[in-house]
């Protein structure tokens, strides 16, 4: 199903009803003002329909067409409920493209918004994903787990697969809404959805667009101990559901346009203290959680962790292959329900902290962070056979 060709956004005479639907998440008034200002600067008001959960601002933007979106629980990512709402609103208002903006969208400027929207409006791209310019030590969960897994299993080039701001075509929205419907129907409306995985499975086109620096406005509310299990669990569940697809799909490695500028990181005092605390957390977990880990990890990984726990924080390095095996084995244990899933993901946190400490050490010694992360992603791809073989034959008598 092809979308109707829409004239460029700059053209003034667009038929009413068609065009861009912008779905805004619930925000406090100040960032909301900022977003509305950016939107107004990016698109002419008559081409755009804004749906938001907040009450519309009194008279500040009279030319904007605003409708009320159904209320949804506020979350820093886009959830299942958001996608269902987006598609319903698009159907109702006959929009051909949707721009979904999460609570932290005040950091996106109008150029970024225009890029995202025009990609899905005018070209044949179905999913436009932002490419954030993050500082080197930000977005580490994404670098450690989300990006390598989606790249290795779904062959997606997207660097930031977690849905926070997106541009969708109508058919993409439809596909996402139908898979989101499963969650909303069974009372799990807050589950994060993985649009990149859906797009790769459906064969839709995906592209990423630079949007400049991004600040997560809800930084204080993001506790690693709750968010990592939630996000990683959602990704594991999604991978489990799409097993039939990624086990057969043998793609060629995607090319990445190099975007980052290599910067030399000198280790600061703060970083050393943080590293020390993370290594301490890992060591504490190693002594206490060994029984839990031994249910999930094979002997060679356990032996490597034992060696790792003896290294001091200055020289702390976790090899990429060990991290790959750990993530894959936890994914398998998630699928097999070896132990309670909440416990499983809680037990992953200290291992993730160990990876972070190792990553910072590696980058502090001169390696470009992006190239290390690319190396990690390549290691995930290389070891995919391990995952597939253990997925198909879960035997505990293995190296």
């Amino acid at each position, binding site marked *: 199903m092809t979308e109707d060709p829409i004239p460029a956004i700059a053209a003034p005479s667009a038929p009413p009803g068609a065009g861009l639907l912008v779905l805004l998440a619930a925000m406090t008034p100040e960032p909301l003002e900022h977003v509305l200002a950016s939107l107004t600067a990016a698109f002419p008001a008559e081409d755009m329909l804004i749906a938001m959960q907040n009450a519309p601002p009194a008279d500040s933007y009279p030319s904007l067409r605003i409708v009320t979106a159904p209320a949804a629980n506020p979350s820093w990512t886009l959830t299942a409920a958001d996608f269902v709402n987006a598609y319903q609103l698009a159907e109702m208002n006959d929009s051909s493209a949707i721009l979904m903006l999460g609570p932290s969208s005040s950091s996106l400027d109008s150029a970024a918004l225009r890029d995202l929207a025009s990609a899905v409006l005018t070209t044949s791209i179905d999913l436009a994903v932002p490419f954030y310019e993050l500082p080197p030590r930000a977005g580490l969960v994404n670098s450690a787990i989300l990006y390598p897994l989606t790249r290795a299993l779904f062959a997606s080039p997207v660097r930031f697969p977690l849905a926070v701001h997106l541009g969708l075509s109508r058919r993409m929205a439809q596909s996402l809404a139908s898979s989101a419907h499963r969650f909303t129907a069974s009372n799990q409306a807050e589950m994060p959805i993985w649009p990149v995985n859906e797009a790769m499975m459906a064969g839709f086109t995906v592209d990423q667009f630079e949007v400049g620096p991004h600040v997560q406005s809800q930084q204080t509310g993001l506790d690693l101990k709750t968010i990592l299990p939630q996000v990683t669990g959602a990704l594991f569940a999604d991978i489990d559901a799409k097993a039939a697809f990624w086990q057969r799909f043998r793609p060629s490695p995607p090319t990445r346009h190099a975007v980052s500028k290599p910067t030399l990181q000198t280790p600061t005092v703060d970083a050393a203290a943080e590293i020390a605390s993370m290594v301490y957390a890992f060591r504490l977990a190693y002594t206490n959680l060994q029984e839990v880990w*031994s249910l999930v990890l094979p*002997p060679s990984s356990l*032996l490597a962790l034992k060696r790792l726990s003896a290294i001091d924080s200055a020289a702390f390095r976790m090899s990429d292959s060990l991290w790959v095996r750990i993530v894959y084995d936890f994914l398998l244990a998630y699928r097999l329900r070896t132990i309670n899933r909440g416990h499983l993901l809680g037990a992953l946190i200290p291992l993730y902290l160990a990876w972070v400490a190792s990553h910072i050490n590696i980058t502090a010694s001169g390696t470009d962070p992006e190239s290390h992360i690319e190396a990690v992603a390549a290691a995930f791809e290389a070891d995919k056979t391990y995952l597939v073989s253990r997925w198909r034959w879960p035997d505990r*008598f293995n*190296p």
Partner: protein
Amino acid sequence: MKKLASATDPLWYKDAIIYELHVRAFADSNGDGIGDFPGLFSRLDYLQNLGVTCIWLLPFFPSPLRDDGYDIANYVDVNPSYGTLNDFKLFLDAAHQRNMQVMIELVINHTSDQHPWFKAARLAPPGSAARDMYVWSNTDRLYKDADIIFTDTEKSNWTWDDTAKAYYWHRFFSHQPDLNFDHPAVMEEVLKTMRFWLDMGVDALRMDAIAYLVERDGTSCENLPETHLAVKRIRAAIDAEYANRLILAEANESPADVLPYFGKGDECHMAFHFPLMPRIYMALRQEDSLPITDIMAQTPAIPDNCQWGLFLRNHDELTLALVTEDERDYMHIAYSNDPRMRVNGGIRRRLAPLLDNNRRRIELLNSLLLSFPGTPILYYGDEIGMGDNIYLGDRNSVRTPMQWNSDRNAGFSRCDPARLYFPVIMDPVYGYQAINVEAQLSDQSSLLHWTRNMIALRKLFQVFGRGTQHFLKPANRKILAYLRDLERSDGSHETVLCVANLSRFAQPVSLDLADRNGAEPVEMLGYVPFPIITEAPYVLTLAPYSFLWLELQPPRARPESSSSTLPAS
């Protein structure tokens, strides 16, 4: 009266199949819960049927049994619980009639502290002949470089004796004082003991703890030159007075350190290859042939009349003394996650539980045991896949009664179950109702039948016991491939290609057999001809944990017509 040897070939041990058993654990005839010689006598048919050619008996001498019989209180008699000397003679004759040899233990490094010699030595004045039978000292600082072997129970190799008012030396338990081989009377007694049993017709002697015979200060007290001299003396006595006998050395050392025990063919005939055994398990778990090829590369060549003794498990723990720290950690994580399974740094589990009772893995390891260069030694019960009981203390987890049938006490004894020397294995997986000889004899697909057939196959070919071994190093390291070759007296060769898949997934392998160009491999179990070897790499695919034994038959003179169709089999 000296009995003649029952074996006619001086190198009989190269073709032997040795079966290790404990009289106490095999069969009980008088209903006292302890196995005995008449019971063992009644089971000789089973052993003969299995294909065993040599029975190795763990110590059955009078003993306070604090080390399962290795603490001996009288060298020239039989423990009354196991029967009388006459019973033993009857058993020995019966075994010989069935063309089976018998190997007993010669535990000369130490005796029990209940032995009359030690009792006399305690009371004898220092410096006297009786006293010097053992190693005494006024301080415990002597020989401090020697390791402690039973780390779980002993804190020192010296123990103070109040009666003797001195320390006595013991490498093992404190109730097993070491004999003093610097004292000539000790050697005389040892030779007397040896002659007693060899006169009776015993074919082979296993020298227990042979590395520790002699102590010298400032050394590790293992493998000293004086020890070798003592062994050579024993061997000389045997060679002078008896024919076709065997000494098997138990020296838990690296291959290079075991080599001296063969001497120049004038010391021990056989020695256990201890370092290979844990590496087989490691290679299986890691799905990598490197641990095995590595240790075999480190194994030196031995004199022509000598032989390695190969085993997968024995009555002791699976020893990890000869692997690196990391390898030991790996083995513990992989095979003995429960700390109760470990003793003295090793793993006290049987073959089947170690391999998770997986029939293919058991068969794979047995195929290695039967096709590697050396004499295979089977531990009793492993031919039916018996389990273990890790809740029994020390190394007793692997010494439970033999499971003959699903009757009371597994058919081992007709006594009240509470009287058994150890309880029988009763869990749902390895219990005697499931795993027993009677059931497996009636089941054609059982492990017992498989073992029997494999032993019979091995006996058809001398190359396994007497040939050389050459490893092919294919690119796929999950495949272990080696050539066994024997040059017969008429100049012809007996060659077998063995290929084993250590992985739990099917594997392809490409072997370089260019130097065997033209040979026709014939699979040995089914006598199935395989494609003829050419200069090109020989490609095989192997199922999970499977193995192939291919006899390489020399190129036949083929007719000129080139149509070569394999005969339908």
